[in-house]
């Protein structure tokens, strides 16, 4: 059996790895540095709809933070109780009451419970801090500050693994200076055109970028510079579909802060096609024939032998 050469490692975007999925699955946002991401971009007062970060938080996040604070209060209260030497009759610990009624030794269990609650609280602290700032980045609020062009023309047909095209991106020069102050990396992706998303909910566009499935293949990811270009060879595992190219600008914590794309807002212009490699190698073809033939021959053999034995 001959194998097709494996795709370069960076093209693995579509076949999600375990590490990617843990983050996606739990819906956790970036870590403790949640405050800094959502400050307005420099002096830009463009009404792109950037709202105040606190007001933008959803009920879920607020709920998490409330729980967190109430747990912290609980811990402090417990500590106070312990110091005062009380170990009975608190509504939080009705089990201690029951234990006393039953004559069990309540004090050690209370102490153990408190020690346990401290470690749990410490763990919860870490988790909640991690959970709290899962604020959604909405596509409609991303400024289109990059101008992206590609050497592909509308209706071009490219072959996976063979053809190349060059993508160029540049910051819109009409923007005030410092607009790209927090752009640290640029990520260029191949995105499905609406005709390839039709009847295929697994490629659906979603305003919440965490749930958006439009762009599933990374062409290149590199450090940001005001202009840049990259010659991209279409990866071997790109499926047959119609595409356009989009570039996201990411800040230091890998959050999307701006974008640019080769097509218009309705995604109708400059759409090109890619023909994928189906994976039907000669090796597979031959093996399938051989195994199938073996199956038929073996059956006939056993049947004939069986009949002969009977006679």
């Amino acid at each position, binding site marked *: *059996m001959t*194998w*097709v*050469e*494996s*795709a370069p490692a960076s093209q693995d975007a*579509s*076949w*999600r*790895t*375990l590490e*990617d*999925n843990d983050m*996606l*699955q739990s819906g956790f946002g970036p870590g403790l540095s949640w405050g800094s991401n959502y400050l307005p971009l420099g002096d830009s007062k463009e009404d792109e709809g950037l709202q105040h970060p606190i007001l933008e938080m959803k009920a879920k996040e607020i709920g998490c933070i409330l729980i967190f604070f109430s747990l912290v209060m609980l811990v402090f209260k417990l500590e106070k109780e312990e110091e005062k030497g009380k170990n009975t009759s608190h509504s939080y610990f009705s089990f201690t009451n029951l234990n006393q009624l039953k004559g069990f030794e309540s004090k050690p269990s209370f102490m153990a419970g408190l020690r346990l609650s401290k470690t749990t609280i410490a763990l919860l602290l870490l988790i909640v801090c991690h959970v709290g700032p899962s604020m959604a980045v909405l596509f409609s609020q991303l400024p289109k500050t990059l101008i992206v062009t590609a050497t592909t023309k509308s209706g071009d047909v490219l072959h996976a693994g063979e053809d190349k095209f060059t993508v160029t991106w540049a910051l819109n020069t009409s923007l005030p200076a410092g607009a790209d102050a927090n752009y640290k990396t640029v990520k260029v992706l191949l995105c499905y055109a609406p005709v390839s998303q*039709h*009847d*295929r*909910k*697994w490629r659906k566009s979603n305003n919440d970028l965490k749930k958006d499935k439009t762009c599933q293949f990374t062409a290149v990811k590199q450090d940001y510079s005001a202009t840049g270009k990259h010659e991209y060879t279409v990866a*071997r*595992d790109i*499926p*047959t*579909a119609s595409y356009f190219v989009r570039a996201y600008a990411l800040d230091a914590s890998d959050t999307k802060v701006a974008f640019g794309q080769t097509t218009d807002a309705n995604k109708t212009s400059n759409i090109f096609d890619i023909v*994928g*490699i*189906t*994976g*039907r*190698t000669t090796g*597979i*073809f031959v*093996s*399938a024939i051989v*195994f*199938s033939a*073996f*199956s*038929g021959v*073996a*059956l006939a053999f*056993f*049947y004939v032998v*069986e009949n002969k034995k*009977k006679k």
Partner: protein
Amino acid sequence: METTEAVGAPGSSLHGMTGKEPAYAFSVDSKTQLDTNATFDLPVDSEHKATKFKLFSLANPHMRTFHLAWSSFFTCFVSTFAAAPLVPIIRDDLNLKKADIGNAGVASVSGAIFSRLVMGAVCDMLGPRFGCAFLMMLAAPTVFCMSLVSNAAGYITMRFLIGFSLATFVSCQYWMSTMFNSKIIGLVNGTAAGWGNMGGGATQLIMPLVYDLIRKAGATPFVAWRIAYFVPGCLHIIMGILVLTLGQDLPDGNLKSLQKQGNVNKDKFSKVLWYALTNYRTWIFVLLYGYCMGVELTTDNVIAEYFYDRFDLNLRTAGTIAACFGMANIVARPLGGLLSDKGAQYWGMRARLWNIWILQTLGGAFCLWLGRANSLPVSVVAMVLFSICAQAACGAIFGVIPFISRRSLGVISGMTGAGGNFGSGLTQLLFFTSSRYDTAEGLTLMGIMIMACTVPITLVHFPQWGSMFLPPSKDEKRSTEEHYYGSEWNEEERSQGLHGASLKFAENSRSERGKRNVASAPTPPGNTPEHV
């Protein structure tokens, strides 16, 4: 007078059910005549059929046959549903739309409707061993050819052809009935069916695992899934060869007697079919089974893709979760039957009917919850509960089927089985093929449909035992089991005494009156019911 059942007579594969003993007994009572001269590993009766069911033995011929039969059925389930966990990869390779995926799912379960009917005839002609082996070996090329498809039409066609292999259910049950005494055949068949169905769950684990290994070895995704399909194909060949070399048709290994009796049908098939079709209970149970086994097959097809897309899991994780659905079969299906028997001990047939209604309606409710669940843990819990209830309902339904008719038992069982596949095809066509509903909505609607389609069981009424809400008939003549089972034979046949076996069955089925009523049942002289 015991009428000897011709091997191969219509429905003979399920004529083990006498109606007297619990459907899931582990061993026969001491009244059965044992052949003490036989040198088998298990105690056997006069026909050399085993009277005990020793699960973890591979002794020739009885237990070995059991393990060969259920594992070949398991393999067919693996290959039929092998595409399901790999759909996220296949859909990009073949540029499939949602309609194509849905239609392929419908096709994969539809083939078996016809092939199961043909399989009965094949088992009659060639014996269950060859029937099973033929199907396995002839289905193997279809599995290998799946690796060669390049468009939606090819994909749908191959899934349809691979689906034919689900007819091994018939050969499996038939083979069991030649090897195991009728008193324990219920448990044996139920276990074999449940463990076979488990293949639908195992495949969701096996295929992503194999796919991952092949990818790690260096293949691109679109090559890897095609190579992964060689695994079920090779399993087909291996199982086929094992069946041919290690299996035997009868405990004595004697094919000749099978062929001598095989074509002598003691009953007219047209009559048997007529009594099956004109009994309204048949159709209600066909509908019910369509919405417990049918939804199980449907869920096997859609659940891995659902978890992959909805919760952004990777293929392995989605497959593992999806596997939990099918693997519950290992205990859930026999559990349904056991609950049915336990209930029948106290409250008779009414308990069996309520048992089915409760399990299946709960299954529908959990399916609805599954469709509405927004977080992963809740989804998994809902799915597991749904699987247990749906599969237990399957087992419970087959606890009632033997009592619908004695004469047409085989045909009714076959129709019920086909109804399962039909229900699956219909559900996939309605809710999982069009773009109108996404999969979550489809699951919700499926749950509602399950609950709605379980309501007709309230209409099932046996004159001698009553129904879910109504008591047995007050008419003295109509409220006997003999009248019910005897009414399947016309005057002429009755005068010839052809209905003897049905009468015996009727006597034994008096246990379906439950504890309280058995004492009041009219007993023919010289016969004490067992449960008093």
